């Protein structure tokens, strides 16, 4: 029988192997990736840790704590993506505008 731990660990390991080399020069993202994956691996291997942590911060069950953390991260990621998207949109606008101004033409009467 395939252990649930294996199923949960595999994507985490793949994530690290795939993305860690790609995030060159982006120390913050690299450290976050390492930190979060390490935490994930730790929680998968020793689920009772989440319970202890949950009690420590005043949450009933470890699983609940993980859910709350997930929701929080999800929203933070959403906001980060939104501002990134706005920035890309602004850059795109600038580019499109430059081309429009450069290629402006007077359409003459016949």
């Amino acid at each position: 029988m395939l252990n649930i731990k294996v199923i949960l660990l595999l994507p985490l390991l793949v994530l690290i192997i795939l993305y860690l080399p790609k995030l060159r020069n982006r120390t913050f993202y690299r450290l976050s990736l390492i930190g979060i994956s390490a935490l994930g691996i730790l929680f998968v291997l020793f689920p009772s840790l989440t319970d202890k942590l949950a009690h420590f911060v005043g949450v009933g069950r470890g699983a609940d704590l993980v859910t709350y953390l997930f929701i929080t991260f999800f929203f933070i990621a959403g906001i980060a993506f939104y501002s990134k998207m706005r920035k890309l949109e602004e850059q795109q606008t600038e580019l499109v505008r430059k081309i429009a101004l450069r290629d402006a033409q007077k359409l003459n009467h016949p």
Partner: protein
Amino acid sequence: MESSKHIFVLVPSFNEGRVVHTTVTPLLEKGYTVVVIDDCSTDNTFDELKNSGVHYLKHEVNLGQGAALQTGIEYALENGAEYAVTFDADGQHDYTEIPALLQPVIEGKADITMGSRFLRKEDIEQVPPMRKLVLKGAIIVNGLLTGLWLTDAHNGFRAMNRKAMQCIYLRENRMAHASEILSQVKLHKLRFQEVPVKITYTDYSKVKGQSSMNSVNILIDLLLKKIL
């Protein structure tokens, strides 16, 4: 009266091929410099304008009306415009009202004027009831967000001098730019006036114009901008 060719009429246009020629012809006859900003139309807009004598600028990607206006303003500034008038392509504005709209700007009484369909009884009667309700709501939202209380909102008919053109920089690519103009008028302490104008609601402009539901999107854009 200033020479008309220093008056740039900016016509943002997105898939208005059916009417854009009719809209720009009288403007050109009046001697205005007409700038059509084609926001990546997928119809025959370009062909319709081919022999018209307009200045034609094309966005290679559809960005929205606010972005098109900003492109037009920059073009006008670069090409020596004294005044710019923003004019909808769908034919809902009346070109004979341009001089009245420009007058306070030319006389130096205002840096920017905005057309309002809620200043004359006969104009108010033209506004469909549902549109009136949405606009009234938008007026309140604009007032609360920008501190400028006007009688109309989202009227695309405006006139401005170079100072206003230089001060205004639209970052809201889509329809929220109408409120953004107001915030910038306030920020740069531009002198502004409202001028009564007529809006013609043809069947075409009603279909092409914004649906009332889109006002919800505009509101969300504005709120997001306030928060983020």
